[in-house]
């Protein structure tokens, strides 16, 4: 009985996604019909239309902004969280609070100066501007998450490494990294999700040349009327990378999202 209830609730909750996927395989006439059409001959026309409409460059921009910013976040966050956990600096909690406070500040409060500064530096509509901003957006969360993973490394391991005379780099790369690898993967995944889905910066700071996938989706909506089925296909394609990554890493995802603060 409870199992049936659970299944029904889950299917209702999932139905918007299912509807989006179904719509993406319809012809336009069947997509916007009243009453809705549930049985139809599926077609790949919409996916073809999306790929033909130059989606490639948007996906490339998103991939660069997401990939490079995630790599930068990891490069910056790992040593920082090491300094905040394994060999803590003074005022560790102040530094941690500072990092997380930057994430709480509304983005909209800094967007105008960023827009003006980017304009003066001639880096408007430049994907590398997004790389810098996405790095700063994800860095605080990554520092918090990585720190909590580092704290789980048993002290004996570090002492052993010290006894063997391993330096900072060696300890980090040889001893610590393998132990926190799953945590690092979860951290990177979170950064990828937030960067891939980010819309606000991309909307304001990019145009045709460096626009990302969310901007592409919106452009699909406004250009020459509304093509519901095609928009659905574009939405499916846009969401797919993150959905698949999230499905694969469900368990690490929750650990990462809770920043490891709760165990």
């Amino acid at each position: 009985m409870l199992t049936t209830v659970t299944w029904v609730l889950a299917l209702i909750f999932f139905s918007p996604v299912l509807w989006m996927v179904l719509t993406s395989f319809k012809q336009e006439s069947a997509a916007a019909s009243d009453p809705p059409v549930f049985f139809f001959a599926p077609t790949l026309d919409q996916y073809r239309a999306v790929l033909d409409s130059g989606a490639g460059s948007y996906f490339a921009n998103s991939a660069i902004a997401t990939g490079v910013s995630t790599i930068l976040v990891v490069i910056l966050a790992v040593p920082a969280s090491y300094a905040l956990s394994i060999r803590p600096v003074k005022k560790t909690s102040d530094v941690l609070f500072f990092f997380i406070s930057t994430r709480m500040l509304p983005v909209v409060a800094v967007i105008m100066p960023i827009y003006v500064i980017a304009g003066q530096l001639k880096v408007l509509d430049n994907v590398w501007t997004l790389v810098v901003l996405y790095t700063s957006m994800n860095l605080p969360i990554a520092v918090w998450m990585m720190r909590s993973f580092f704290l789980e490394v048993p002290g004996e391991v570090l002492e052993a490494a010290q006894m063997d005379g391993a330096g900072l780099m060696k300890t980090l790369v040889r001893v610590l990294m393998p132990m926190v690898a799953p945590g690092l993967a979860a951290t990177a995944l979170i950064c990828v999700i937030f960067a891939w889905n980010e819309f606000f910066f991309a909307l304001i700071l990019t145009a045709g040349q460096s626009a990302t996938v969310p901007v592409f989706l919106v452009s699909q909506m406004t250009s020459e009327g509304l093509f519901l089925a095609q928009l659905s296909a574009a939405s499916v394609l846009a969401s797919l990378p993150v959905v698949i990554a999230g499905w694969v890493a469900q368990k690490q995802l929750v650990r990462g999202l809770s920043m490891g603060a709760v165990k």
Partner: protein
Amino acid sequence: MSTLVERQQVRARKAATEREGGGMSSAEGWRRRLPLLPALIFTLIVTQVPFLFTIWYSLQNWNLLRPEGNKFVGLANYVDIFSDSTFRGAALNSVLFTVACVFFAMLLGIIFALLLDRSFAGRGVVRTLLITPFLIMPVASSLLWSISILNPSYGLLNWVIGLVGIPPVDWTSQHPIVSILMALVWQWTPFMMLLVLSGLQAQSKDVLEAAQVDGAGWWRTFISVTLPQLRRYIELGILLGAIYVVNTFDQIYLMTAGGPGTASANLPFYIYQRAFLGFDIGQAAAMGVVVVIATIIVATLALRLIFKSFDVKD
């Protein structure tokens, strides 16, 4: 648990270094600080420098549509904000969206988590179905909701309520706030569910059995045993959810454009409107500063609360 362990480890390590060298030498201090500096300096520059500019802009009368340029007006922008009823409305909407979304998402999240915390056929599949809304790109889900689900003429929701005889509703223009909340709650429920679920699975089975032996019913056990144990997870979900939901922009921009009028605008959307459609840089900057101050106050209180509850629980 982790907090106390963390603190002990930190304390032990500090004590160890102090024993070794009788306090940290300044060279040692710098050696420790060095790995932190790149991240700290990067964050300081990218987040704090623009904010200093925002404060500066907020003291100017600067509208890009007026050719005379900007001039220093002191706190006039701030005075204007507090007499701006749209700003108050947007602030109220921000609070409403955040509180209502976090509340309903948490409520549904707890229900789903309880249903999932049993073994049954297809549990993995159900969990996968339930977390998917969180993974869908917010822009995609906003478009999906406003166009595919809530559309007055061919939307799925009107068809469903039509089956039970309810006449069609023009959701996004008649009930913009409810419409946005539907999409927001749908997106955030999986996040709350995952957090609560990990809390449920960390729960010790002994206590549950003891409650059963004492003859406590399901509801009684839930209220007096499970819920208190979940407290930290629920608080964390509320804090993290609130941080993100208060900044909601995508759903409002794409589903209602803040309308009709400014009925469903929240602060991020209204500031965006003032800055990038009204070109009123000074006003928008002052609003940004006000929002930041309000956020700092709320966030500090919330963080204190959550840290405190972690310590007490340990």
